[in-house]
């Protein structure tokens, strides 16, 4: 009974946090892209456009939902379900932090840890292909079908280098459980498997990240949605919440890829440098810095209302910084902070790349996967196995 209650609570927390992250990820993306392009981005709904995600949800829910008569209705409706369910499911094995004790219960900040966690994520993501392939097929539209075919061919092509890139750090960790993979890495930069001797996994890290970009159909691999040739690709004929479902699946996949990268290569919840060197003070220092900035601008206000709002924010920030200094809070929050910092940085990279790189041509994209990434991943695996065996 207790077990079920704890599981349900965890599931509810993870689901709620994930949904919020997905909604705000889109706001962050629009803001960052806008600033890269010297624009303002969303700024009308709420301060700095912070309520924009809410407005988007209301808009999408109240939009008219067309089901064109030429589609295959059952599969047309099934496709967004498949896409979003599979995208959400893989988050259930991600460890967000170490073991904590809350209200007398000892529990891990992870929904569940599987012996075959890595394979579970791969299996679920390989099922995600069907959502896209079916959407393209069932829409009965040339753009959608071509987009669906391209997209699923791209996803399966990049799945191979991705699995090979995952196998290399596993030679060091010798486990498929995500929790144990993190535990096998140490609490500083050179004990993370990306730089860990004897076999630094820098190459697998890069391959994994590139393959991750392709798996999530992001720029520069967003061929399925190449607007100038394929309109909107596989979701051309989708509207309203069904369109939103595909959108959400894409963002959820981005979150999963970022989490997996930080677990496999960047030490998961392990800090950048050991606690003995003061890594627990990084988060309070960041909040204190934010607080000082707010205080400075509050004392030198640009607008009249800043005189009142910014000092309030400064007080909140300083309060958080102080709270984080308390050892019981730090024990719970610090692993979460480091995990979120790594995953957040990777998510930022997704957006950064979108603002920077142009799109591949389709033949280049397939050639890149099969003729470059795949052999490099195989060689990297061989070299890693030799290095691990020698030392």
């Amino acid at each position, binding site marked *: 009974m207790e077990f079920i209650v704890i*599981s*349900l609570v*965890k*599931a509810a927390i993870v*689901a709620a946090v994930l*949904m919020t992250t997905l909604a705000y990820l889109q706001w962050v993306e629009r803001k960052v892209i806008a600033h890269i392009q010297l624009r303002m981005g969303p700024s009308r709904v709420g301060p700095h456009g912070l309520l924009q995600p809410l407005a988007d949800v209301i808009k999408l*829910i*109240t*939009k*008219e*939902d*067309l089901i*064109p*008569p030429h589609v295959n209705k059952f599969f047309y409706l099934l496709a*967004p379900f498949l896409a*979003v*369910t599979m995208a*959400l*499911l893989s*988050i*259930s094995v991600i460890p967000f932090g170490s073991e904590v004790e809350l209200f007398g219960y000892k529990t891990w900040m992870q*929904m*569940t840890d*599987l*012996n075959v966690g890595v394979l579970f994520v791969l299996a679920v993501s390989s099922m995600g292909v069907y959502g896209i392939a079916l959407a393209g097929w069932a829409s*009965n*539209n*040339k*753009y959608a*079908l*071509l987009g669906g075919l391209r997209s699923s*061919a791209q996803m*399966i*092509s990049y799945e*191979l280098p991705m*699995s*090979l890139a995952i*196998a290399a750090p*596993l030679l060091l960790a*010798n*486990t*498929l459980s995500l929790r144990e993979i993190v535990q096998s890495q140490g609490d500083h930069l050179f004990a993370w498997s990306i730089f860990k001797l004897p076999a630094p996994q820098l190459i697998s890290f890069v391959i994994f990240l590139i393959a991750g970009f392709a798996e999530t159909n992001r720029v520069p691999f967003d061929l399925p949605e190449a607007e100038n040739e394929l309109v909107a690709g596989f979701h051309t004929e989708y509207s*309203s*919440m*069904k369109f*939103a*479902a595909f959108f959400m699946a894409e963002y959820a996949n981005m979150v999963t890829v970022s989490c997996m990268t930080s677990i496999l290569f960047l030490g998961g919840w392990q800090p950048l440098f050991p606690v003995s060197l003061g890594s627990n003070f990084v988060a309070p220092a960041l909040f204190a810095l934010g607080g000082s900035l707010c205080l400075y601008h509050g004392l030198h206000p640009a607008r009249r209302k800043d005189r009142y709002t910014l000092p309030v924010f400064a007080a909140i920030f300083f309060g958080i910084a102080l709270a984080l200094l308390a050892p019981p809070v730090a024990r719970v929050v610090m692993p979460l902070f480091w995990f979120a910092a790594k995953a957040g940085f990777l998510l930022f990279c997704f957006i950064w790349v979108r603002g920077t790189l142009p799109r591949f041509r*389709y*033949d280049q994209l397939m*050639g890149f996967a099969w*003729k470059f990434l*795949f*052999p490099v991943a*195989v060689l990297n*695996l*061989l070299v890693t*196995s*030799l290095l*691990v*065996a020698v030392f």
Partner: protein
Amino acid sequence: MPDGYLQIFIFLAIAIAFPTVTILAAKLIRPSAPSITKLEAYECGIKAASDSRGRYTVRFYIIAILFVIFDVETIFLFPFAVRYKTLGWFGVAEIVVFLAILIVGYVWAWKKGALEWV
């Protein structure tokens, strides 16, 4: 059932319920005013010349079949990776032989032009 899978089923239920609830909720709120033009297949404003059921290039098929083959190969690498330290040099020899045979196949397929996308 091994430990830890029950939570997966719980989360699966949530992951299925979420899109169901939102899409059904949206159905209650949203307007519905379909018209003939709205319901046409989208072809950039031109009337669709034919429907999408044609035949497409065989390259997708080749990619898919190569993927199946190499996917079977990679799945073997995972039990190998978790046993690697206990196997020692014996394991290195095993994996070198295994991968060498496959690299031969890969190079051959490349030479035959199966990886070209023209």
